[in-house]
């Protein structure tokens, strides 16, 4: 009986064993299939996913390039700072946190409290603070308050050259001046750091990592001379104080190279405290502001006359009165909008004058009579040759082109242009025009950056554009005329002890929204030493008080101070010293 039962049960055991065996085989087959799937078919994908969980990619910010003056003194550089931020959800006592941070960072408690209670996930409490300030805050161990390193752009020269160097914003983007003009070169190329981290965010040592280093931005070497820039700037500030003017601009050029040695203005601003400024002083008006040059324009008119041969130094201009009526009836009209009546600055008897005398005493009437000898198109051609009516192309953003506002149907405009009206120029354009005379008749494009230094130390230099505007002889003669203006004419205050200086005064009525005003733009542009000029200085004073309304009174003294400093800085041998 038992044997029979056993015999019946035997197949059942076998079948169970078979089932179990098959199940095991299937299970192993499944595992094998999965193993092949994981290890062979999708191995790369899983490896990549695993790696992605551990790998962290960090962008390595490049160091922004420095800006130097010609002596290697830094005008702009980048230093490490720290930015303090908060995760508001983690902050336990917002008021206390705001107070503690505000005390140490100089922030406003109410602003910080508002930020902490803004409901945002992340708020900055203070950006780019000094390292020791950040350490003080970190030492407080405030819940939810952290800091991270951040590069900060600083300007060690402060107000000096601020309007030329410009500024970069808090994120390191150039927004003004050279910082903007050369932003792409200064900013560099970001790199990437790939490393493995544990779940706590700690870097795993010896784990595979790759570094694509950031390429630092190029350094810029400018032509500015910091001490001379300071002299120009302080002289401008003194001029404002002395003359009661609204603005003052000074441009100093190396006559032989076109390098801008100084470009200063007043009022100015401190780039590190720029939020406290009203913004009106940010712009570099030596490049962007246009004005009617007045008598300094006579350099171009007389140069055109000499260069075309219609006059020479000893040519006599007959019947030079102190009033000249180009538009009939203009001098008898009381209408402000009828132009065409021209007067000399001081009354004098009608007499003949040489070209030299016309220029030296700055006779408007005499200059207009000289202009009448020049074909009209030729005069405009010379104005363009000297760089008027188009930007100089200086490496500075937003340069004003100037304007030659001569309407073909305007009968008085040619006379106006000859004495510096109907023409708008920038201080830089006038400096460059005079530099052409200083440089034996060759105009050189003014420029601020003389070299760029890349990460390998390779220096790339700049070759400025040049063009001949007048003959060498014309340039010599014009320099002699300019010297006579300082020696015996309207520019005596521009003299510099030890050097023979040449230059020209300019006084132009200021044009306002409702026509010409009683205010003036007083200027002086000149060069030294006149035998072989090395330096050209242009001084423009906007709206000086009536007693300082002329170029000789407002601008020439400032020219003298700056020119003397420039000659000494460049080590130019005084005249009269012979071996």
């Amino acid at each position, binding site marked *: 009986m038992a044997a029979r039962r056993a015999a019946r049960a035997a197949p059942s055991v076998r079948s169970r064993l078979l089932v179990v065996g098959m199940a095991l085989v299937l299970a192993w087959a499944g595992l094998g299939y999965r193993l092949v799937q994981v290890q062979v078919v999708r191995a790369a994908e899983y490896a990549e996913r695993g790696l992605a969980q551990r790998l962290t990619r960090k962008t390595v910010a490049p160091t922004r390039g420095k800006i130097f003056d010609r002596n290697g003194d830094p005008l702009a550089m980048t230093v490490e700072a720290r930015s303090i931020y908060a995760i508001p959800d983690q902050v336990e006592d917002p008021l206390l946190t705001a107070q503690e941070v505000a005390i140490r960072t100089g922030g406003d408690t109410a602003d910080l409290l508002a930020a902490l209670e803004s409901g945002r996930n992340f708020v900055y409490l203070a950006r780019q603070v000094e390292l020791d300030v950040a350490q003080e805050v970190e030492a407080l161990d405030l819940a939810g308050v952290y800091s991270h390193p951040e590069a900060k752009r600083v300007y060690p020269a402060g107000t000096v050259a601020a309007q030329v160097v410009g500024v970069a914003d808090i994120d390191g983007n150039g927004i003004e001046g050279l910082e903007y003009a050369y932003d792409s070169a200064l900013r560099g190329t970001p790199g990437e750091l790939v490393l493995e981290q544990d779940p706590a965010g700690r870097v795993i040592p010896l784990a595979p990592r790759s570094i694509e280093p950031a390429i630092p931005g190029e350094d810029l070497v400018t032509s500015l001379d910091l001490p001379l820039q300071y002299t120009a700037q302080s002289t401008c500030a003194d001029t404002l104080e002395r003359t009661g003017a609204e603005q003052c601009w000074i441009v100093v050029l190396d006559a032989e190279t076109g390098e801008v040695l100084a470009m200063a203005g007043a009022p100015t601003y401190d780039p590190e405290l720029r939020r406290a400024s009203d913004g009106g002083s940010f712009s570099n008006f030596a490049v962007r502001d246009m004005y009617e040059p007045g008598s300094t324009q006579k350099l171009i008119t007389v140069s055109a006359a000499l260069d075309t041969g219609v006059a020479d130094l000893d040519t006599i201009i007959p019947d030079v009165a102190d009033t000249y009526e180009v538009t009939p009836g203009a001098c008898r009209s009381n209408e402000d909008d009828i132009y065409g009546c021209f007067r000399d600055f001081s009354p004098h008897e009608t007499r003949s004058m040489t070209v030299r005398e016309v220029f030296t005493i700055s006779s408007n009437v005499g200059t207009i009579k000289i202009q009448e000898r020049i074909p009209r198109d030729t005069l405009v051609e010379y104005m363009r040759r000297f760089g008027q009516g188009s930007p100089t192309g200086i490496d500075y953003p937003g340069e004003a082109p100037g304007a030659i506002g001569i309407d073909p149907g305007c009968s008085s405009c040619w006379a106006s242009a000859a004495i510096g009206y109907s023409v708008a120029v920038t201080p830089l354009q006038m400096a460059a025009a005079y530099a052409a005379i200083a440089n034996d008749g060759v105009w050189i494009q003014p420029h601020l950056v003389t070299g760029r230094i890349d990460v390998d130390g390779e220096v790339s230099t700049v070759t400025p554009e040049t063009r001949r505007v007048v003959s060498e002889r014309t340039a010599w003669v014009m320099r002699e005329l300019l010297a006579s203006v300082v020696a015996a004419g309207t520019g005596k205050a521009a003299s510099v002890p030890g050097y023979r200086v040449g230059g020209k005064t300019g006084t132009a009525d200021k044009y306002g929204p409702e026509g010409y005003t009683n205010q003036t733009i007083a200027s002086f542009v000149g060069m030294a030493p006149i035998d072989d000029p090395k330096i050209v200085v242009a001084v423009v004073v906007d709206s000086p008080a009536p007693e300082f309304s002329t170029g000789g009174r407002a601008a020439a003294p400032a020219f003298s101070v700056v020119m003397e400093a420039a000659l000494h800085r460049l080590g130019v041998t005084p005249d009269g*010293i012979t071996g």
Partner: protein
Amino acid sequence: MTARPVRSITVPPRLRVLEGRRPRRRPIAPWMVFTLVVVVAFVGLALARTALDRGAFELAELEARIAQAETENTQLRLEIARLENPARIAPLAEELGFVYPTQRRPLLVSGVVVDMRDADPRWIEIDRLAAAP
């Protein structure tokens, strides 16, 4: 006659004593050496790994110190630049009584050769022209 099987004569086997080989113990020396090598290699690897890890940490620390030194260097350069700023020095000099000379006279130091390339002989002609009535 019926065939009958012949009874086989069985000869009892002669017994002899064979000189058996003495069972030899398995040699353990190679295994011990192998084990020792493995252990030493393992320990060596562990030590090397530890040393490398320690080196990595030291390297990271050194890199951090270098970065800190560079930061300090930059800060010092900034401080120098700020201290050398003429806008800071000029007022201080003025406070100390330094002033620009009001009268200057260039002096010729005997024996010092001055480069006179600046003097242009063509000015003689210009001066003559300028002096003309």
